[in-house]
């Protein structure tokens, strides 16, 4: 027995040895930079003079100078970017969930050519975000874009629309491209859940002659809800940190600037490491809170299942 526990101890020792390189790299690329970012948020660091900074407390967040409130929390553009990000995330995730469910239901049906349709649906997912942004930018071009051309020929619009420049359509353009790009991800996750469903539920409903729409809302939806929630949380966390699509599609205009876009603008373009880091930290906190909430709620459900 002694040799058994020796063996266990040796294995645990080697386990830590095996983990060390990965943990070191993770600390170098994630842990340390995150701590530095949080710290820079409390300093007046500038990109142009690294190393020359001092602690300034919370003044990057909020400070009262000469009868005026300054700092991130008093910055109108910051709040605009918060609003843009939240609005974008809510609308795009809802649209992606609904469309993804429809596509998944179609792919779950048995029909000739299903493999081809599934392959076609995967294409937007395979295209790099920057490439899809450029492709859509060209299709949405105000003078030569195919979308304006089609809509004008169908007499839906009478004059060309500058989709990405117009402040009333810019955010919708971003949402449209994001929905196109990420619906496949949603559809695949939902399809995986659908395929794990027991088929006897359907057969029972079919025998009873229940309307398919009713079957979907009463049987299918409750059964795939856990998987659906996981997919929604993943997508929402992804949507909240959006940067590249907006950067290319609308050059980060005021109508569409996101929280990530605002942070990078301050950090790099305005070289204000302090304020930019404060913005980054705020976004990190928002995402951390949502992640913890999602994980706790998810865990609660798991333990309930275990109790049954």
């Amino acid at each position: 027995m002694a040799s058994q526990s020796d063996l266990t101890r040796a294995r645990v020792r080697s386990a830590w040895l095996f983990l060390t390189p990965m943990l070191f790299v993770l600390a170098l690329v994630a842990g340390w930079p995150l701590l530095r970012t949080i710290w820079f948020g409390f300093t007046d660091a500038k990109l142009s003079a690294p190393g020359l900074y001092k602690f300034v407390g919370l003044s990057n967040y909020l400070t009262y100078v000469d009868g005026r409130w300054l700092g991130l929390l008093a910055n109108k553009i910051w709040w605009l970017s918060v609003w843009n990000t939240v609005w974008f995330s809510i609308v795009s995730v809802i649209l992606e969930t609904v469309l993804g469910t429809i596509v998944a239901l179609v792919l779950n049906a048995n029909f000739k050519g299903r493999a081809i349709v599934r392959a076609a649906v995967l294409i937007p997912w395979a295209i790099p975000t920057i490439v899809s942004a450029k492709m859509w930018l060209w299709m949405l071009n105000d003078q030569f874009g195919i979308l304006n051309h089609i809509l004008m020929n169908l007499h839906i619009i009478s004059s060309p629309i500058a989709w990405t420049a117009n402040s009333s359509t810019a955010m919708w353009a971003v949402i449209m491209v994001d929905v196109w790009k990420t619906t496949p991800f949603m559809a695949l996750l939902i399809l995986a859940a659908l395929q794990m469903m027991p088929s006897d539920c359907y057969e029972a409903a079919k025998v009873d002659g229940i309307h398919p729409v009713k079957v979907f809302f009463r049987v299918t939806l409750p059964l795939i809800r856990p998987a659906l929630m996981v997919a929604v949380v993943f997508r929402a966390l992804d949507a909240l940190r959006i940067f590249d699509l907006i950067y290319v599609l609308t050059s980060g205009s005021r109508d569409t600037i996101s929280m990530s876009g605002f942070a990078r603008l301050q950090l790099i373009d305005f070289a204000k490491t302090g304020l930019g880091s404060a913005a980054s930290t705020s976004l990190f906190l928002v995402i951390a809170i949502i992640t913890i909430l999602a994980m706790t709620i998810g865990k609660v459900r798991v333990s309930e299942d275990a109790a049954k």
Partner: protein
Amino acid sequence: MTRILKPIGFWLLVAVIVVYAVFPFYYAVLTSMRSGQALFDPSLLPNSFDFSNYVGVFQQQPFALNILNSIIVAVTVVVISLFLGVTAAYALGRVHFAGRGLLLITILAVSMFPQVAVLSGMYEVIRLLGLYNTMPALMLSNLILTLPFTVWVLTTFMKELPRELEEAAFVDGASPWTVVRRVFLPLMWPALVTTGLLAFIAAWNEFLFALTFSPDNRTVPVAISSMTGASQQELPWGNIMAGSVIVTLPLIVLVLIFQRKIVAGLTAGAVKG
């Protein structure tokens, strides 16, 4: 009546889905084969097979170098992620020790990080190491995107392998490293292909770090986003579309070949997460 209408409605829906998914890329291919005035021809059928944009993108832009940069970064990131992922997955998946659950949660949490949260800290690290505007800067920073899910997916896979496998080897006196290399690695090819491919795509598509840490020595996404023509106002749409098609086609082919594995990898990462 409904007996006829129902299948028609279904096939109409299928047609709409396929056109919606495929049309933008189809139109990019069409545009890439039109140059000069033909570029502004809104016709939806291929009527011009002019490959001058495909030549132009390599002559007017350093696109070959951009592609080489992207390949070097993505391949290095994949190799490092898989190596660190396999060793860590052995420890996390096969050995019971205190703090294992906490470690797994921490690793999962890192994959939720917004990239911008590490931007200024990473900028400092890269400047201290003297890596600004070089590919190693991107290899290093991209690991934050690929490492957590590689470890997570490989750990899940490792957990499901039967216990007897390693016990026999340990009884024979093999070291843990030999066990990982000789016993587990050969069994892990399917998982390695999936995670490797997902890591490759993540590194290949990465934009924020590439734009910030290596703005002049460009990878493909940064190059495509900043292609300009003779004048600033007039974007070289033909070249941009040709470049886009060149870097996207291999990805589409890979994804279609490995589609079952990718779907399995995505769901393993998401559902079990």
